[in-house]
């Protein structure tokens, strides 16, 4: 056993014998704010969301158009690759299934792209079947800028770096390609239940 600091406990990080907490994670009560860059400040008037790339026809929504689509409120657990998990977080957003309706594509992968340049890649399949949303509210309030507002991608079944903040669109691609953190060693897929944190895991 290596060095141990006498009597140091750290933040509560018991791994409850709870089927809802993936391996290696600890529960938090706050909502940590993490960022790879300055908080973007796009106004709602300038904002748009698009589906582009390997599609027959590109689609695009303004903020008003997005908000006019049917939305739903969901409660999910979220898991960050840096080991914190937060249970029962409540979000409101438009299901990505709704946005993909009528989109004709042979592509299997997606690169989510955002204001500020952040990107993350996912299989198209993981954005469907009621597993992903473009979320604009958290805990009943409009999504704060520091947490990705006006809208972020929400894909709770994967590590939370895949739930891209300040999302502006999805680029459909034939082949998988690494986004920001994936380029710097994080796992291409990121399943918390298999502890897929880093490439090679």
């Amino acid at each position: 056993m290596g060095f141990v600091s006498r009597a140091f406990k750290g933040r509560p990080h018991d791994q409850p014998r709870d089927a809802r907490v993936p391996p290696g994670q600890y529960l938090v009560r706050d909502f940590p704010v993490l960022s790879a860059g300055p908080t973007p400040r796009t106004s709602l008037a300038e904002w748009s969301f698009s589906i582009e790339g390997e599609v027959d026809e590109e689609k695009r929504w303004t903020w008003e158009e997005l908000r006019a689509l049917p939305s739903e409120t969901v409660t999910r657990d979220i898991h960050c690759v840096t080991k914190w998990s937060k249970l029962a977080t409540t979000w409101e957003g438009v299901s990505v299934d709704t946005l993909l309706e009528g989109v004709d594509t042979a592509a299997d992968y997606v690169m989510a792209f955002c204001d500020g340049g952040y990107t993350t890649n996912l299989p198209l399949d993981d954005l469907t079947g009621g597993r992903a949303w473009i979320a604009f509210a958290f805990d009943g309030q409009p999504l704060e800028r520091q947490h990705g507002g006006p809208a972020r991608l929400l894909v709770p079944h994967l590590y939370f770096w895949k739930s891209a903040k300040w999302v502006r669109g999805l680029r459909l691609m034939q082949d998988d390609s690494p986004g920001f953190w994936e380029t710097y060693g994080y796992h291409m897929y990121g399943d918390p239940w298999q502890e897929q944190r880093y490439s090679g895991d």
Partner: protein
Amino acid sequence: MAGTALQRRLIWRTAEVQDLVDETPRVRSLVLEVPDWPGHVPGQHVDVRLTAEDGYQAQRSYSIASSPTGERVTLTVERLEDGEVSPYLAAELRVGDRLELRGPVGGYFVWDVSLGGPLLLVAGGSGICPLMAMLRLRHAAGSAVPTRLLYSSRSLEDVIYRDELDRMAADGTGLEVIHTLTRSVPQAWAGLHRRIDAAMLSAAAWPPADQPLSFICGPTPLVESAAESLVHLGHEPTRIKTERFGPTGG
């Protein structure tokens, strides 16, 4: 001259707590014995790492508060309400305990007597720590570099190193200490009673023509606005060094 030493990769060292000094109700200094300590330049910091029995680790950075002329390394820690590391260091740690640290590091926010002055030091709360290392070296070296310290604290009892600063300011070497209190003031307080702002900096700063070196350390909003004010007053941005605290999580 003997062979030139090449720098090595930095490693974690184990320091031993020699002494603990309560500076204010919330702040404690840790006096550490660090084996093979290579010495440091004022302004440098160390990364401290704590490990729990189950292997959980937490790491934070702390500025070295002592002068490099001393034998021990002093870190001064403010106990943050919701902190994870600071309550352990500022309240739990005992003399004889061991602490893992890595350093000294940092080459940007540093001052040595050879860099001269005049110096403008601006501190918010525990931002005084790296600046205190600079002042302690200045004192130990018998330097008369004209220096002004503008130091913002919540109340008089929160002023860290108060007596030592009073003594240094009275020793005739050209150090001026200007305190400002932002929350409560004692009866008959004749000093400043508000947050550091552009007017206060304008009054405290050296004329830009004197080409001062400025070091600003503290919470991010204070650091950003002070740096901006100094630039507006005409100071050369490359001669303004900042060390923001940011939300390290305590």
